[in-house]
């Protein structure tokens, strides 16, 4: 019977083999066009943003990066120095706070917690990532700010006042410290959920081996889990940093929007992304618009490099897992 059906449809099928079916060609071309949209958008975004920043790039050159000014000299001088400083301080500060907490959460969820706690806590931590940044910023202005000026700030100043970063009492709730705390809250769910998956991927033979040798849980983590997941953790931290650097809304709500460089975290400052967001109601001159877009160019270049690096690390790690 099988032979019969083959012969009956044989000649037609053989004839069709060499030809490309029109339906297949259409599907192929349409889906290819869609899949190319990622590359096209990346190129278009880069081109458009650089083109519109060009007047400012031409006028200020790389000196833009080392000039601390925004609209000085009757709106003819713009520079990004204080925003680069603010971005570095707030996002590195947030990363410093978020890294141990995120790793600890990931360890709790993979190594310590019983299954039912895991299934409750893991979605809750991910829900933290779902809170819109504008809501977190609202909370930052109206709840966290007063708490910093009223309680946390004076306490930190009282205890660690000899450190330059806490050298004054916060006079307003909008300051770089508030921005650091908000950014910390934003990147913890990102870093911890990536790390949780990394830790789950550590082969249990390795962990069991270490346990059988008499290692404590912490020694297993330090000696087996961390080294195994090292590259992935690095990628997670880069992604977290990228998120912190690019966050505009929540930061602009709490940081105080001041063109200044202070070691003191209780003083207002500003970041690249936050400065752009703060100017949404309109720039006065064409040069100011171009300078604003120049800030976006800096952010774009940073995010392209950071994400490319993180993704390449992730791919290398994934490749290693497949080889095993």
């Amino acid at each position, binding site marked *: 019977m099988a032979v019969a059906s083959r012969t009956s449809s044989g000649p037609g099928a053989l004839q069709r083999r060499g030809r490309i079916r029109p*339906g*297949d060609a259409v*599907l192929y071309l349409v889906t*290819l*066009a*869609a*899949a*190319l949209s*990622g590359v096209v*958008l*990346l190129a*278009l*975004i880069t081109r*458009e*943003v650089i083109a519109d920043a060009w007047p400012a790039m031409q006028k200020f050159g790389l000196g833009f990066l080392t000039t601390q000014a925004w609209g000085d000299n009757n709106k003819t001088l713009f520079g990004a120095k204080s925003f680069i400083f603010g971005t570095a301080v707030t996002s590195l500060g947030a990363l410093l706070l978020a890294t141990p*907490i995120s790793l*600890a959460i990931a*360890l709790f*969820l993979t*190594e*310590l*917690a019983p299954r039912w706690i895991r299934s409750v*806590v893991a*979605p*809750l931590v991910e*829900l*933290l990532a*779902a*809170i*819109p*940044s*504008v*809501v*977190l*910023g*609202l*909370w930052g202005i*109206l709840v966290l700010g007063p708490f910093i000026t009223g309680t946390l700030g004076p306490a930190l100043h009282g205890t660690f006042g000899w450190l330059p970063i806490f050298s004054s009492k916060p006079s307003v709730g909008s300051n770089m410290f508030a921005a650091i705390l908000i950014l910390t809250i934003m990147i913890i769910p990102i870093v911890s959920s990536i790390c949780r998956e990394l830790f789950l991927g550590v082969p249990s033979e390795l962990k069991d081996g270490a346990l059988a040798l008499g290692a*404590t*849980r*912490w020694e297993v*983590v330090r000696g087996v889990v961390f080294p195994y997941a090292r590259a992935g953790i690095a990628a997670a931290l880069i992604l977290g940093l990228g998120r912190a650097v*690019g*966050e*505009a*809304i929540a930061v602009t709500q709490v940081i105080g929007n001041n063109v200044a460089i202070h070691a003191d975290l209780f003083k207002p400052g500003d970041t690249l*992304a936050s400065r752009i*967001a703060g100017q*949404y109601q309109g720039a006065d001159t064409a040069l100011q618009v171009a300078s*604003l*877009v120049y800030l*976006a160019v800096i*952010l774009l270049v940073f*995010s*392209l490099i950071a*994400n*490319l690096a*993180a*993704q390449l690390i992730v*791919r290398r790690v994934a490749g290693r897992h497949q080889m095993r």
Partner: protein
Amino acid sequence: MSAQAPSADLFRSERMRRRRIVNAIVEGGATIAALLAVGVLVIVVGSVVKRGWGAIDVDFFTKTPALYTGFGPRPESGIENAIIGTLIIIGLALLMALPVAVLTAIYLNELAPRKLANVLTLAFDVLNGIPAIVLGIFVFVFVVVGHGQAAWKASFALAILMVPMIARSTQEVLALVPASMREASLALGAAKWRTTLSVVLPQAVGGIVTGATLATARAAGETAPLLFTSALYSDAVGYDPRQPLASIPMFIFTSAEQADPVLHQQAWGAAAVLIGIILVASLIARWFADRSVRRLKGER
């Protein structure tokens, strides 16, 4: 010659005690960190609900913001324009993003040579990492400068944000569709396109819905792409996407900057509505994801 008993007591040595203490400290720290994260979530959501609850009544959904001049009784005001604006902006963004994302996933999973697929996926992953404010600036210089703001331009910015997310989750489900189903269809003589659209894609609907819902929920809360594209809106209810339209995130953002405590309360109310929408969407997405993964893994 008798064997000598070990002189060191393995379980009571000073070293073992220290190792156990370090271990206990780390375990305690990890537990505290998890509690801390959950605590922050409870505090933030708690403040939003507690402070926003008082603002939410029927007027909040059916009236537009009323200007209060400081004289006489304060007129009832609400955020109807922002709710409708958000629905229009998000709906359009989904309409733009969904077809592109699904077609992309089909190409990457079903048709592309492996190397090309890897490069294109990398491009989407990098695109996914571009800050929302930069996307806003891009759309601003691309289509707003010289032409003015419009709701559909905000949708365009949000769509760029959504495509990588939806494509990724669609790809993940397509990968779960058993190869035997494709082979069976091809063996029956169906063309590749027919197999892909009628056999493979229907299996992935659950994953597409999940990805689309999650991406929509995330986009609904984004403010940065709206700042330069749909921020200069009027307070009247608008339906025309060629005009800038109000939105819930922009309402929260601008109200929070004001000194008026009544506006603050309304901002909290709007935040509660926004978080409510996002929560419901996430729950629906999770439910769909669980269901479709269960089905594809054969536990019918």
